[in-house]
């Protein structure tokens, strides 16, 4: 019988390579432990749980595709959560990116005190996602809040609460999201600074006016940055949770009008202890985000241009 042995010289080479990389691998170990124990492990576990009935207290029972069948054909709250989330994403992302670009262009002019303005405009992004701001937001828009008083001045009846009104609650959360335009703004600013001044000058010499330069030079050259911001903000918007949780006290109300997908997932998993179903919801959200990202990537070849002509 033939046996395979590693030649001595090759064994030496492998040992040498291991010796050389050993300290590197040692430094990697804490991260690897974290990745496997806290990310990959739970993710794979939730993939399994998505096909089970699991109430956390008793062992999971394999149910095949039951969770997904229920999700797609019977669960009206799932459809409501999808509708709320899609509405939120489709309004908040373009509005936020548009405002961020507008402010970035204004700040790119190099006016006096631009650094201070940049810091002020970035501030909402630092604090906007916090629970404290969501609570403050709730005070502002709730019954007898500041907006209520302002609306009364405009002739609205007293006791108006935008957050307690199913027609306005989601819109208010979209405004709260758009207000946190700082992060994409900073990235847009960096992108604008990357566009060489001589291209704007060449366009001026070619007779292009301000708006023509913006649409024909600035926007196309900023496309890679817009592309990046679009993907990051879309993913962020799909994952939005804190604001809806705080302003609706975790109910997604009024009348499920702020029932974000992640909030519904949280309710299913941690309020109703349907962890199997919550896992199925989580994996479906991943598929939605992946599909959106893939579509954005596919569309990129029609509108994103890189300096190297790609």
């Amino acid at each position, binding site marked *: 019988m033939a046996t395979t042995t590693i030649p001595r010289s090759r064994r030496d080479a492998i040992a040498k390579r291991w010796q050389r990389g050993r300290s590197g691998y040692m430094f990697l170990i804490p991260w690897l432990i974290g990745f496997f124990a806290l990310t990959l492990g739970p993710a794979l576990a939730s993939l399994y749980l998505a096909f089970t009935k699991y109430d956390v207290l008793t062992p999971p029972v394999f149910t095949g595709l039951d969770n997904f069948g229920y999700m797609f054909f019977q669960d009206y709250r799932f459809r409501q959560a999808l509708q709320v989330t899609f509405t939120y994403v489709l309004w908040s992302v373009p509005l936020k990116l548009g405002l961020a670009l507008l402010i970035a262009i204004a700040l790119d002019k190099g006016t006096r005190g631009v650094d201070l303005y940049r810091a002020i405009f970035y501030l909402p992004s630092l604090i906007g996602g916090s629970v404290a701001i969501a609570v403050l937001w709730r005070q502002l828009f709730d019954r007898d809040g500041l907006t209520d008083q302002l609306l009364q001045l405009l002739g609205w009846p007293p006791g108006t609460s935008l957050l307690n009104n199913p027609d306005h609650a989601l819109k208010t959360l979209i405004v709260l999201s758009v207000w946190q335009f700082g992060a994409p703004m900073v990235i847009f600013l960096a992108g604008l600074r990357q566009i*060489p001044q*001589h*291209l704007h*000058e*060449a*366009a*001026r*010499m*070619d*007779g*292009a*006016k301000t708006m*023509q330069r913006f649409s*024909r*030079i600035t926007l*196309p*050259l900023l*496309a890679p940055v817009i592309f990046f911001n679009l993907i990051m903000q879309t993913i962020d918007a799909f994952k939005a949770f804190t604001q809806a949780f705080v302003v609706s006290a975790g109910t997604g109300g009024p009348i499920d009008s702020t029932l974000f997908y992640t909030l519904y997932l949280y309710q299913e998993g941690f309020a109703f202890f349907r962890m199997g179903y919550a896992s199925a919801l989580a994996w479906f959200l991943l598929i939605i985000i992946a599909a959106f990202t893939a579509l954005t990537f596919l569309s990129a070849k029609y509108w994103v*241009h*890189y*300096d*190297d*002509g790609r």
Partner: protein
Amino acid sequence: MADLKLVNVCKSYGQVDVIHGVDLEVKHGEFVVFVGPSGCGKSTLLRMIAGLEEITDGDVVIDGDYVNDVDATDRGLAMVFQSYALYPHMTVRKNLSFGLEIARVARQEIDRRVAEAARILKIEDYLDRHPAKLSGGQRQRVAIGRAIVREPKIFLFDEPLSNLDAELRVATRVEIAKLHERLGATMIYVTHDQVEAMTMADKIVVLRNGVVEQIGAPLDLYNHPANLFVAGFIGSPRMNLLEGRVIGSRTGEIEIEIADNVRITAPIGPLPDVGKVTLGIRPEHFARVGAEEAQLALTIDFVEALGGETLVYGSLPGGSQPIIVKLDGQHLIENGASLSLTVQPGQMHVFDATGRALPKMRATAAAA
């Protein structure tokens, strides 16, 4: 095609004055070169003509119209930038047609002009490529093509060859000169390379520190530099500038001592009361002679044999005044040897203590 007039044009950035009252007239179809060292203000002046920089004082007049307050977009000029400034997201064809599309020129006319420019510049094969896929020389052609298609009143070139290698620079230089001849267009060209200025210009404007030092035809500047700066800047290798002292003066000529027992008679007059002067002799205006005819004996430090000519670096007795001599053909000369030289008659320039050229008489030189 248009003419251009600059009247006392000034430019300041805060308290710093960078252009000091430039007056200039450029006629229809003229090729004018702004030349000067880095930071002399030549590019700023060009950008002021283009409308990319505001004018602090003075007037810019194009075809009789004052354009100080007219934006670059409306001046009808075209500019070729040092960095090419091609739009990276557009194909070559789009780069060429962009200005015409903005001006809402009919599609057929755009296609005709793009095809014509591509043919002239031999870039037909690259029309559907992006700039990133082109070499430096090809990009430069596209940049020039973008200017051509617009049929501008004036072409402006801002150091367009400085990013090209030496060989391509010479070839493109010739092509731009041919293009000027073919189009008959008014062109203003900025460079720090005096060889480009000499070979391309109808008229050269020499600038230093925002001041026009001299304006004239290339050979005028070469033969009659107005001051020490122009004398040193125009010509390659640069003119030898030898400090001397006037030790004798007769009608129409002066005797200058440039080193111990080295005296040269220069045809200058009438002579104001000058003591120290600078004698200017171009490297190519020396001739190698026998020891008995020599005006100067040069101690050789270094020799560059270039084949068609020989550059000799040496110094006068005492070693204080370095001299470059350019001799035609090939010469077997060793370092440390002595080279007997005479100066060609009529080829000496004398500058007074302020650096201003003294009026030249018929030139002769005499051995001390």
